[in-house]
């Protein structure tokens, strides 16, 4: 794989998420020029009220999504380390979703291709708005050699942990 010039990563503290969805607004405005929550590459889940968190690509070291893609529609950005989607090559087969340990990619609601965070070419808009409001759920950091795949978890799994953290034993009733 090609050398990365300035790889970044978005550090995430899910416990601080207010559920404001400003990240979705910023992401969809930047990528789609519209406010479009379901077309956002970062999506806030709220399977249990109070337990909101952003769900988006973690750029695993071994990039299982890229390996799973049958049409070579997914590549790694040399610049940032992000997974880039070639919209024309993508057939919307969904194999990357199955390959992702967190089932993070999802389909564009109206076009036939997958949506994966592209790290905004090194200047992630979600991070910008999250920092502006001082929630600091998201922070841009330099990508190093860490176990990023640990962050790629299914919404139900993340919900379970946060729900118990906030609500204790009672939280089990909502899962």
């Amino acid at each position, binding site marked *: 794989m090609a050398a990365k010039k300035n790889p970044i990563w978005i550090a995430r503290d899910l416990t601080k998420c*207010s559920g404001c969805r400003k990240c979705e607004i910023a992401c969809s405005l930047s990528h789609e020029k519209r406010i479009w929550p379901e077309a956002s590459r970062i999506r806030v889940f709220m399977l249990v*009220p109070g337990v909101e968190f952003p769900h988006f690509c973690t750029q695993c070291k071994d990039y299982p999504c890229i390996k799973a893609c049958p049409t070579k529609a997914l590549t790694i950005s040399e610049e940032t380390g992000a997974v880039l989607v070639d919209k024309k090559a993508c057939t919307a087969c969904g194999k990357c979703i199955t390959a992702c340990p967190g089932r993070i990619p999802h389909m564009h*609601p109206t076009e036939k291709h997958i949506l994966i965070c592209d790290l905004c070419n090194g200047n992630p808009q979600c991070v910008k708005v999250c920092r502006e409001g001082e929630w600091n759920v998201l922070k841009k950091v330099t990508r190093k050699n860490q176990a990023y795949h640990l962050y790629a978890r299914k919404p139900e799994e993340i919900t379970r942990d946060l729900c118990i953290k906030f609500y204790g034993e009672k939280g089990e009733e909502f*899962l």
Partner: protein
Amino acid sequence: MIRGYAGKFLEVDLSTKKTKETIFAEEILKNYIGGRGLATKILWDRLGNRWETINPFGPDNLLLFVTGPLTGYFPGGRICVSGKSPQCNGVVGSTVGGEFGVELKCAGYDGIIVSGKSEKPVYLFIKDSDVELRDASRLWGKDAKQTMTLLTRECRELLKKRYPLFGEWREPAMLYIGPAGENIVRTAVVAAKWAHAAGYGGYGAVMGSKKLKAIAVKGTGPLPEAANIKKAEKLMQEVCDNAYSAVLWRRWGTGAAGYEVGADTSSEPVRNWQEEWHDEKSYGVDQFENRVWVKQCWSDFGCPTNCLKVSVVKTGKFKGAITDNPDYELQAYLGPNLGIFTPEENVYLASVIDDLGLCGIQTGNVLGFAAELFQQKILTREDLDGIELKWGDAEAFAEMAKKIAFREGFGDVLAEGTYRAALRIGQIKKIDVLRYAVVAKGIGIGAHGIRSGKDYPEDISYACSVQGGDHTSTAGMPLDGPGSELGEVFNDSGVYCNFNSFGLRKNLRFEFYEAVTGIKLTAKEWAHTKGLRILQLQRVMLLLGGPDVSWKPLIDDDNPPRFYEPLPSGPYKGKTVDRKEIKERVKSYYKAAGWDEKGIPKSQVLRRLGLDNVDKVLEKLRQ
């Protein structure tokens, strides 16, 4: 072409189980905007000529869920719930925060009009243009948290089954009722996200009367296009920057008020408003938070303020109780108003109220009213089914709240809300207990008193409001000034959170409206024509009222008797409002609003506003 609208409404007839789409003419959208304004217009057009005969709980009443063009654009998403109110028998634009309005617009609808009545419990499931009425018998009887848990699971499974290639489906946005709504309790809410509620108006009971347990909506489209998205983005930023500068407001939300509105402005209900002052320092900011908050920032769609917090009782006998902050209104009404001054008891009671689907304000009001009657020995332990409603006894109040939600025993009387309960108790006890009822036109007054003169409502704010005791829609003079009810009419019609409009420059909301819709609107045009027209329609339907009660302006455009008693304690001890002065002020308001000396909108005003047909209907009131 007007922008910012999805362009159609969804109509659901629960009697026939049929659905259809309805398009409103651009002229109507331009004039009535959305939310409260558009709901008022729809209700007038469809029910106005027989308004007095419409039973709020009958199949003829309409239940409306209406977004506005600014929903999703103006930071802080909300949805407006309306219909004929079973509390004031007029129209209330009752808004609730959350993602529902945004999801609905992204599904392609500006609103939902529900008519008729289902025989069996149902819920409405909307995924873009796929609309389905589904069996809700499994959900009927479930509390707020159970309902959301079951419905989230069921809807996500449905989505996954029907659209397996999409990836992980998020939860749809939901509005639902608890047991109180199912049992047609007049203080029942239409709720969202466990602890959010469209409380004023009592529309949870209307939803229950139609056997509609919930609405779940997932919209996968974009928000309807704005006329000038760059301008809209700039204004969004301005609104957010303004909010970000209010550091303590964001930090505590309305929670700081639990102490301050009592101690400083002396306008917090204490023991059914017998006092409006307390100096209980444990009832505010960090002394409250450190014991119960598990989440410091809790926002609805796009909101920079995060005035909501999540609370959990961690220790003691109420361990495991979960609610939001509670926000100031519930801090006050389920706190000092019931003689309760500890965060744990307050959180517990608020969680009970949320779970039952009751309104914390209206139910806190009626519980306080009942407790005072118990204090005055007008109601006995026997009357109250063996419950001693002693000030400060959170468990007794919780027990009575459950009786209210299920209409059991004396709870059946209190389930009618304070005003109607006062009439019933008055008949039973042969004594006038309305003097203990702190209500305006059937609606319990929000937790901001007027006697000290230091809080934001004016002395005629509740007396002259078209939404009675609603503290989020208070009347003020002049009508084109900052304290006017017309400002709230705009917020509730654009449908966004008024909390994010605090401190903004005067014309920003109209600029925002233009950026989204492409339609120019000036403050003057709003105050003298469009906003005023909505206000007149609301006033007319409020006065028509019926069938069980209606209001006489010269009697009912007034404060509750309690507000004429001098404050007995605190820094403003002895202060009150003067009956004679209020009479004069109400008269001035009539004049300012274009109402005659009997409080009825004048013919010439209605005709100038193009409301000739409304004027004709008013003939019966003028006689």
